[in-house]
């Protein structure tokens, strides 16, 4: 039933289109890049975009090809965002299900911890976690993942609590089903959709967080390219060579927009009330 | 006879929906005289409320749209000209009260202010004067300790009191016409009687005309002079209240009356209920919309909508082939 409605949903489709484009670029970048993304070329420093030289997006302060670096940075951004989101989603969802399903003191304890984490600005939390863990690429995944734990805990707990009140769950219990059976047979499948929406929106924020961390020098470490550290490097030269700042930023904006469109479109499919208002 | 205040001619209001155009109000005509209490009766969804929202052009557009007809108020057509001209009639000469008093007052504004607003606008009162008048109105309408309670917010009032507030608001500018859209449906039975009594006495004192929309024939019998029975967006029968109860003509009206529990009929008699359910306005069958539920349906009923047939004294008319010229007449 979802697929038919998804077809009508231009917003979600546009999101899927943008994300597929990036996936295609990653695929291409595995086999071919216009230039070596880490090779310096002192003869062509800060060259403007040009078809003649082959540097379509220009070169940076070390003469490296910006397009190639953006393409290479694509997979880093996606892998880190996916890793962080999955980490946060798995831990957070388990906590949320646990809290919502068992209720009582576990619920209180888990949700208070989540509230405390949640009340902190996500970027600051990620920065502080990076400060404690140290500036390693894999630590970025932890830093962003921790930000997501409370969010997923809240979403899944809320969904479980709503479902628990439903007649079909009461009916399952009254017909003698065990707790585990009800949980996996009735509850978990029904919270998948809100979780998928949350995953999509989280991916968009994860890309922004990763780029901000890298921009501050705490994320992906140079010379390996990431969109954030490219923008960081561009800071000193952006007045002289605006292309060093513009293109990596656009790469971020469109991928983030892609996930936002997908998440927003999916949310529409989920929420019958919103569908009517529209 | 008193002068005619409001004359509605061939009013049509439609809604454009994804299932097609719904004719919520289809070719409705009636008149309202000074001091008259007119009842508009019918099942929910028959177009009563839409008719009355149309009178003040309060239909949400889109999807709604008044597609034809005239609404002559004191000789002036409210459907002609821009909305600004109707706006000054709203709340001033024609006021409305709505079905659900719990949601019809703004939760964030003080009661007194919500009443005073209309006074400031239509009576040109200053803020202070209007607020004082508002408290006075609340007192007149039977709110105990009105001075103090005027500064309360809606959530501090009960449902019955909120409906009184709505009435105070509506009559604040001495309107010529009060439109009451199911004013008692959402209230407890005991409160219902009080509210009806209040409306009745107000109309008597102020020679105010009232259009009472209801699905409850008991309400109609108590306070109305004239009754229009609506079915599927059309007025199927018009009569004075005495005529209607004494001798209902349209099979639908008869069904409605037979489905009222009566003390004098003896408890053994089973209550009648009209078979079937109201039609879907988006896909009306051709001919008379009541035909599928009518026990007197004839061949012609499925082909053509019966015309309005006048019978007896002035307001009395019916739209049914049983009475159309030559075919029926009063038995």
């Amino acid at each position: 039933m979802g697929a038919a409605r998804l077809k009508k949903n231009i917003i979600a489709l546009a999101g899927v289109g943008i994300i597929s484009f990036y996936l295609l670029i990653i695929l291409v970048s595995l086999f071919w890049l216009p230039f070596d993304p880490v090779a310096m070329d002192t003869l062509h420093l800060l060259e403007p975009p040009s078809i003649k030289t082959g540097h379509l997006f220009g070169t940076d302060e070390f003469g490296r090809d910006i397009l190639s670096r953006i393409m290479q940075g694509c997979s880093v951004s996606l892998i880190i965002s996916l890793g962080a989101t999955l980490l946060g989603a798995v831990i957070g969802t388990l906590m949320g299900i646990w809290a919502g399903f068992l209720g009582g003191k576990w619920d209180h304890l888990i949700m208070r911890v989540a509230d405390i984490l949640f009340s902190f600005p996500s970027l600051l939390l990620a920065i502080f976690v990076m400060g404690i863990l140290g500036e390693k690429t894999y630590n970025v995944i932890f830093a962003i993942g921790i930000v997501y734990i409370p969010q997923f805990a809240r979403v899944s707990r809320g969904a479980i609590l709503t479902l628990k009140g439903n007649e079909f769950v009461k009916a399952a219990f009254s017909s003698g089903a065990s707790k585990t059976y009800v949980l996996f047979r009735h509850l978990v499948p029904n919270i998948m959709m809100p979780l998928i929406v949350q995953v999509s929106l989280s991916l968009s924020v994860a890309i922004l967080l990763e780029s901000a961390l890298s921009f501050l020098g705490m994320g992906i470490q140079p010379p390996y390219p990431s969109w954030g550290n490219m923008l960081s490097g561009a800071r000193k030269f952006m007045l002289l060579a605006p292309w060093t700042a513009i293109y990596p930023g656009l790469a971020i904006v469109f991928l983030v927009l892609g996930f936002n469109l997908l998440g927003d479109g999916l949310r529409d499919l989920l929420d019958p009330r919103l569908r009517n208002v529209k | 006879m008193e002068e005619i205040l409001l004359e509605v001619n061939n009013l049509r209001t439609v809604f454009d929906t994804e299932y097609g155009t719904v004719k919520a109000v289809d070719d409705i005509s009636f008149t309202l005289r000074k001091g008259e209490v007119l009842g508009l009766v019918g099942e929910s969804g028959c177009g009563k409320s839409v008719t009355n929202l149309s009178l003040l052009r309060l239909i949400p557009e889109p999807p709604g749209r008044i597609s034809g007809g005239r609404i002559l108020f004191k000789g002036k057509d409210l459907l002609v000209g821009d909305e600004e001209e109707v706006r000054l009639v709203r709340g001033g000469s024609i006021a409305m009260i709505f079905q659900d008093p719990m949601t019809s007052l703004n939760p964030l504004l003080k009661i007194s202010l919500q009443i005073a607003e209309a006074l400031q606008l239509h009576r040109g009162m200053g803020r202070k004067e209007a607020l004082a008048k508002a408290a006075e109105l609340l007192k007149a309408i039977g709110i105990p300790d009105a001075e103090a309670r005027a500064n309360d917010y809606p959530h501090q009032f009960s449902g019955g009191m909120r409906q009184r507030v709505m009435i105070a608001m509506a009559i604040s500018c001495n309107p010529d016409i009060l439109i009451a859209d199911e004013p008692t449906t959402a209230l407890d039975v005991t409160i219902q009687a009080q509210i009806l009594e209040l409306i009745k006495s107000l109309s008597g004192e102020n020679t105010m005309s009232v259009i009472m929309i209801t699905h409850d024939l008991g309400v109609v019998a108590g306070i109305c002079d004239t009754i229009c029975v609506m079915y599927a967006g059309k007025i199927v029968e018009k009569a004075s209240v005495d005529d209607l109860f004494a001798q209902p003509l349209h099979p639908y009206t008869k069904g409605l009356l037979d489905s009222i529990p009566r003390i004098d009929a003896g408890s053994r008699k089973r209550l009648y209920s009209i078979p079937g359910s109201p039609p879907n306005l988006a896909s009306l069958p051709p001919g008379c919309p009541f035909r599928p539920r009518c026990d007197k349906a004839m061949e012609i009923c499925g082909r053509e909508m019966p015309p309005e047939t006048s019978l007896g004294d002035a307001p009395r008319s019916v739209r049914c082939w049983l009475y159309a010229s030559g075919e029926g007449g009063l038995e």
Partner: protein
Amino acid sequence: MGTQVEATPEQMEELKRLFGEDKPIPVLYIEWLGRVVQGDFGFSLRTSRPILPDILQRLPLSIEITLFALVLALALGIPLGIAAALKQNPLTDIVIRITGLLGLSLPQFWLASLMVIAFSGVQGWIPMGNYISFAADPIKNLKMLFFPSLAIGTGLAAVIMRYTRNSMLEVMQQDYVRTAKAKGLKKRVVVIRHALRNAILPVITVAGFNTGYLLGGAIVIEEVFALPGMGRLALYAIYQRDYPVIQGIVLLIAAMFVLVNLVTDLIYAAVDPRIRLDEGGR
């Protein structure tokens, strides 16, 4: 990062005693809290200066940027949201939606960079190491903080625009709005006095909730525009592993959060009589 020379075990012991770290962590933590309550946040490991005065000196600028960004977000988001609700049709709906999502997709620091590129030639608008405080010259100060605040506030403006629009559309269908229209009020009065006041309630919650997000943004933006706020202090403390400073900043931010939540609740109560405590609403 930085120069790191290995210390001998004896030196380590000496250092630990000096910093009072020879006790178990919970004890240390409680001792630290005890001092914090008295206004003693301790000393920076790098500069040996007392921490609290340093933070307090930089805090006002970060708060100013955050509030300025909040004001800009509200000033942009609410009118656009109302306009979108009043001019509702399939085309504006989709434009508003995509604009809103685009606003959410812009990295604040990149937006800031674009502003620097675009406006660096215009005198006095882009601060570059020549920060002028509000006390010294309010106009120059606000001019200087406009773009940094805008860069932070744009995302929230997009969020507020969508919330305002959806909330307005819902409120415009309420019975009390119909009552207001039936009273004969001008459309402007119906929208502003009756609809907007109700529609703004969820927007207040969202704005309050996102003030922390603005504060997080302020830290990065201060870096881009070289503004001497708390964000830069925090970043350098993290770069240099200056833990007492980090601890102090975390504590202050948490305190500000509590404050923001309190203010949000107070504003909410001021607008909505139903939740005023003294009247014990239903």
